[in-house]
């Protein structure tokens, strides 16, 4: 099993190395290496998944990476239900996104093309390291590695200032979160003496309650950075500067879910800290609603999807926060398919329109791009929670667990957000694909993309529609499978709550969430197809709210005013002008000046007159010999 796991991890790395070192050779054939480098691990992942499904697990060390005294960190891998699900999701979605990229990136320069595939493979390598690691430090390596690839790919068009800045913003925002993550790791090591999951979880009960709460909150701080939750979500919308398949793979399907994975992986710790769980669930719910509200009025195709991703990640955190780890991971799994799909569709539209992203200029594209439009609608139905598509099962499961675990407010927020989700998704569809073309020129150039792009769309659309049905498999379905892992630690505290409510209550909850989804869709239809009520008039009427939402609550401006401008100001006026110029330069120049001053005094003894030197030698010899004789 170790060999298979190593193959899964190392093949993408090999692909990245070949394209990275020989990009001048591979050029436009880069995908011939990159695509198999993901497709083969995808097949192996399925084999591994099959083995795990049949009850096998793996937790072993490949070799010892760090071994200093008691501090021992292995390069070791853990394959259980959770990581099996993650590797299948990552490799499978990544494979189709790689194929799609062949078509999407065909306008790039030769080197850019190879570079792109190199980064993409590299990303998958780190993502697999992250999910397969058997200790926190190796996970952190993957965690930082995906951050690095995210930075590189957001800034892929680095000549563009906005792209380069967006990359930096993503990277720096993540640093804030990672700070918390690292402190949490230090605390874990200090108090438990190990970072290997197995040891940490086995001895976790030794942690006192305040300590467990602190550690889990700090871990969650890392998750808010990586998974774009309040207050660190600001980087994700800007990350849309990168190529669209990147947004699809990294900023929708895989990397941003790393935080959810990490919380689910640390479920033993979180179960010890009820307060942290509440925080996770509350932040998740708040983020879900907050991000969804910003998506309501945005006109940028990709940014709507970005806010939607933030919002859906909020749902996942609600899931793990109320103790329904399996539901959270299930939503992660389905979300990877439908959100990945929708980003690819957006990319398809963008590719056809030569980079146009403003929905106000689109309209009526259904006639020109049928496959893209239909697959997008499938994705939107899935995310809106229309049965029996994927999103319905997972989102409903989260809301159900939130409700039965007594988080009524969170359930309510989640349900309202579900309606908002349905609304903005269908607003996007009606504005983009239906109605009258609002810009003749753009409508003229629109065309369906080649099969290399549409086939991945169709495949992902198929899975977006069907993966939810895994919930119906015998033995508790998908969540039952994951609960083999989670329940072992979680001594059925929640099970008790389950029993009573079930059946009747559950049916009502399902009905409510389906109803709100249709309400959202219906409202979008009325507003953007029938124009009753007319969105323009509504905008006028609620101008302050609209402005607030349109400007994204001024959060970016707020962060600029609170953190960035003061930092820049202090750096410029204090650190640069005073500390650097006066103090540091003063010390360095002062030492140099002192040396030259002393040198100026002493150099007078160099007369350049040879007998003087001869005298000096003679006198020196006499003194030395004299001392020798005296003493």
């Amino acid at each position, binding site marked *: 099993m170790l060999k298979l796991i190593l193959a899964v991890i190392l093949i993408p790395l090999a692909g990245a190395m070949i394209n990275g070192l020989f990009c001048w050779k591979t050029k436009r054939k880069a995908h011939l290496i990159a695509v198999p480098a993901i497709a083969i691990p995808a097949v192996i992942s399925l084999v591994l998944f099959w083995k795990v499904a049949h009850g096998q697990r793996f937790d072993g060390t490949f070799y010892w990476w760090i071994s200093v005294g008691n501090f021992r960190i292995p390069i070791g891998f853990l394959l259980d239900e959770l990581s099996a699900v993650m590797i299948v999701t990552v490799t499978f979605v990544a494979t189709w996104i790689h194929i799609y990229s062949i078509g999407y990136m065909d306008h790039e320069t030769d080197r850019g093309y190879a570079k792109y595939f190199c980064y993409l493979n590299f990303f998958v390598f780190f993502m697999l390291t992250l999910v397969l690691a058997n200790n926190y430090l190796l996970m952190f390596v993957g965690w930082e590695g995906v951050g690095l690839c995210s930075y590189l790919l957001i800034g892929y068009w680095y000549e563009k200032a906005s792209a380069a800045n967006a990359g930096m913003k993503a990277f720096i925002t993540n640093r804030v979160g990672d700070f918390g993550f690292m402190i949490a790791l230090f605390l874990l090591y200090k108090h438990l003496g190990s970072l290997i999951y197995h040891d940490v979880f086995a001895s976790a009960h030794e942690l006192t309650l305040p300590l467990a709460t602190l550690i889990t909150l700090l871990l969650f701080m890392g998750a808010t950075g990586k998974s774009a939750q309040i207050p660190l979500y600001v980087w994700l919308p800007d990350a849309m500067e990168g190529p669209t398949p990147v947004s699809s793979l990294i900023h929708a399907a895989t990397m941003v879910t790393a935080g959810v994975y990490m919380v689910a992986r640390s479920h033993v710790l979180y179960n010890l800290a009820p307060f942290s769980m509440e925080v996770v669930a509350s932040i998740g719910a708040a983020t879900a609603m907050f991000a969804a509200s910003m998506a309501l009025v945005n006109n940028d195709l990709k940014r709507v999807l970005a806010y939607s991703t933030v919002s859906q990640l909020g749902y996942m955190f609600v899931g793990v926060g109320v103790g329904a780890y399996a539901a959270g991971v299930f939503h992660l799994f389905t979300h990877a398919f439908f959100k990945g799909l929708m980003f690819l569709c957006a990319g398809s539209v963008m590719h056809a329109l030569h980079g146009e992203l403003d929905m106000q200029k689109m309209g009526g594209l259904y006639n020109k791009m049928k496959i893209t439009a239909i697959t997008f609608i499938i994705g939107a139905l899935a995310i809106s929670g229309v049965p029996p598509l994927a999103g319905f099962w997972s989102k409903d499961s989260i809301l159900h667990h939130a409700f039965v675990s007594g988080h009524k407010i969170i359930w309510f927020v989640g349900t309202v957000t579900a309606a908002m989700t349905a609304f903005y998704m269908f607003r996007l569809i009606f504005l983009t694909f239906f109605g009258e073309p609002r810009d003749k020129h753009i409508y003229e150039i629109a065309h369906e993309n080649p099969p290399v792009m549409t086939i991945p769309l169709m495949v992902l659309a198929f899975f977006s529609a069907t993966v939810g049905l895994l919930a119906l498999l015998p033995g508790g379905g998908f969540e039952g499978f994951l609960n083999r892992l989670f329940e072992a630690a979680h001594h059925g505290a929640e099970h008790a709550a389950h029993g009573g409510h079930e059946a009747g209550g559950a049916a009502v909850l399902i009905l409510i969430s389906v109803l709100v989804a249709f309400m959202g869709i219906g409202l979008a239809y009325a507003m953007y197809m029938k124009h009753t009520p007319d969105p323009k008039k509504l905008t006028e009427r609620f101008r302050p709210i609209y402005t607030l939402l349109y400007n994204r609550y001024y959060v970016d401006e707020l962060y600029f005013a609170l953190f960035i401008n003061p930092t820049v100001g202090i750096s410029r006026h204090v650190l640069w002008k005073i500390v650097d110029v006066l103090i540091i330069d003063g010390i360095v120049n002062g030492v140099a000046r002192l040396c030259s001053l002393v040198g100026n005094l002493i150099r*007078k003894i160099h*007369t*350049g*007159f*040879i007998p003087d030197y*001869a005298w000096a030698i*003679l006198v020196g010899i006499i003194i030395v010999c004299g001392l020798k004789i005296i003493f």
Partner: protein
Amino acid sequence: MIPVSWIFALSVLVFATGALGVLIRKNAIVMFLCIELMLNGANIFFVGVSKMRGAAEGHIFVLFMMAIAAAEAAIGMAIITAFYRRKGGVEVDRADLMKW
């Protein structure tokens, strides 16, 4: 038979003359000659010691040193010739490149 102390006295006298010459003269050729005097003072000392101990090593060393002095003389004269061509004289205070 000449006492060994006389030989030593002669050696010191020759060496001191050479050293004084190096220190007080400005003419490079004279200084050079004085260096040869110093060398020979040392040679005489070697011979004296060798004679005193009744061993031959000192004599052998003196032969070596004379050979080296000859080689050094050739090089030294070449340098002085080059110096003369460049500076138009052999006074050492003409060499002041190393002066502060």
